[in-house]
């Protein structure tokens, strides 16, 4: 039997969708066009000459390649360290009851509750005394702080969602507590934790203020390099090409996320 509900066109919804699309796609499109433009002079609407000239110019620079490898190394190291530190902590938050648990749990929000730059400047002052300014590990430390929230809160939700009977059943057949965590709890929470790792990797890759304030000028990540290009070079194309390069990791992350993260895990991670 057919339903007799007439479908009305939701004009408000369509307007919002179109505006949102323009707001998101528009700038991306402009930057994308600039990256493949050789000549584009006012008042022409489309570039006079397309081409890959600025790509070869950008990729020929040694500082671009060193900053790409710096960014990848940094994001990998930070994500790995963050996992080693945060996953056991998240498990403790999810499964154990200890005094001050709730206050500690919400304290991770504190780093994100205040203006970030103020916090960074304060930390930079401390790092200066510790001789961490301009060092790789100084940048690692500052970026670790940024990943704490994701890497604690999302895995906590993931661990809480694991059926305790599964863990008990594993104890029952002879697995010790650590083996249970490794063979049962971690794989069960796997997809959601993979989402947290992705977020942490991509977040670190794009993090700019901390990396610039603590790392400059010795440690130059791709976003930091882009800032200096924008500030120092009169040529728009350098920045545009770097922007397109910067999209690559998030694009790969998205593809990966679609495969690894089954629907709902992301939402579960955020308590949805």
């Amino acid at each position, binding site marked *: 039997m057919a339903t007799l509900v007439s479908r009305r066109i939701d004009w408000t919804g369509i307007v919002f969708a179109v505006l949102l699309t323009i707001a998101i796609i528009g700038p991306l499109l402009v930057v994308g066009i600039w990256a493949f433009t050789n000549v584009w002079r006012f008042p022409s609407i489309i570039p006079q000459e397309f081409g890959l000239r600025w790509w070869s110019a950008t990729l020929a620079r040694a500082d671009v390649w060193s900053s790409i490898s710096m960014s990848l190394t940094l994001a990998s190291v930070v994500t790995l360290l963050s996992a080693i530190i945060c996953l056991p902590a998240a498990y403790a938050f999810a499964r154990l009851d200890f005094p001050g648990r709730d206050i500690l749990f919400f304290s991770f929000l504190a780093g994100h509750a205040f203006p970030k730059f103020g916090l960074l400047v304060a930390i930079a002052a401390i790092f200066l005394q510790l001789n961490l300014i301009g060092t790789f590990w100084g940048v690692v430390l500052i970026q670790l702080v940024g990943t704490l929230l994701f890497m604690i809160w999302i895995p906590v939700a993931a661990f809480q969602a694991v*059926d305790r*009977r*599964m863990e*008990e*059943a*594993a*104890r*029952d*057949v*002879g*697995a*010790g507590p650590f*083996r249970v965590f490794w*063979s*049962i709890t971690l*794989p*069960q929470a*796997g997809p959601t934790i993979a989402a947290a790792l992705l977020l942490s990797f991509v977040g670190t890759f794009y993090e700019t203020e901390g990396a610039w304030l603590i790392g400059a000028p010795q440690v130059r990540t791709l976003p930091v390099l882009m800032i200096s290009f924008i500030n120092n070079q009169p040529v728009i194309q350098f920045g545009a090409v770097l922007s397109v390069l910067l999209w690559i990791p998030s694009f790969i992350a998205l593809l990966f996320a679609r495969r690894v993260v089954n629907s709902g895990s992301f939402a579960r991670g955020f308590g949805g």
Partner: protein
Amino acid sequence: MSVLKISSVSKYFPGGTKAVDSFSLDVADGELVCLLGPSGSGKSTLLRMVGGFEDPSSGLITIDGEDITHLPPERRPTGMVFQSHALWTHMNVFDNLAFGLKLRRTGKSEIREKVEAVLDLVGLAGYGERKTHQLSGGQQQRVALARSLVLEPKILLLDEPFASLDQHLRERLREEVRDIQQRLKITTLFVTHGQDEALSMADRIVVMRDGRTEQIDRPDVVYRNPQTPFVAGFIGTMNLIDGEVAHGRFHRAGLSLDLPISDGPAILAMRPEALDLSLADQGQAVVHRVTDYGTHGLVDLDLPEAIRVKAMVDHPDRFSTGQSVNLAPRAVAAFRDGRQVFRS
């Protein structure tokens, strides 16, 4: 060849609640004992203490004379089947069964042999490569049973294993589990709140209430000779009537029956199937409702003082709402101060 001994085991939860209160039980080799009771009676807590998932506050648990009271679960020779089957969904059936064997450093070919044998035993030969979510509820519970059995535990623990299954499947599985248990002669402790399960499977039933034992007996004895009014009311259907005994007769709600006990208050107990009805003008009770179950009928009767009793009849079509009837119990029991004082 395994004997489970539970001696004066108690479990207090934080806040002082007594979940299990000085409980003792011996389970003989190859015996299946059912812990039966309403929720909150402590039966699950007791089972979890035997499995090592709860630490007893006091008391002693031994298996074949060996003290296991405070051992962690992984070091106990017990195998537990959980209510929610608790299969590891990221492994296939084979890996679920092989996990415990791998932890015991069993050889690959031996693992394969054992897993195939146990799958055959539970009627799931050839299901090894299936994912757990590709199985039906009954099959999942069979895999959970196989996961415990493959390790050849000394004591098998079943925690309401059929609770999530539908009625038909439940009946079939309990026959299967009973068959397997008898074939392997494995000592088994079984927790349930379903009296049908307990009556049909157990060698002995422990009726529990508020963390204590009400009665431990064979199923037929628990049914026919309940020692407390709680057991009488919990197992099967029982008409329980509070009344007074004076000069060897029980009085309440228009009833007057011979009851050769001393004067004082008493609870009269009559099974519906031991209650004869006869139509009568100005009878003791009025028919409230007649229910036909096909094999038999149940008649709900209103007595004075808002007391209702049930009687089982062979021919429900002989009775209808509003009729006046007389009751004649063929067998009664009587309780006083929580204990049985008379049985005919």
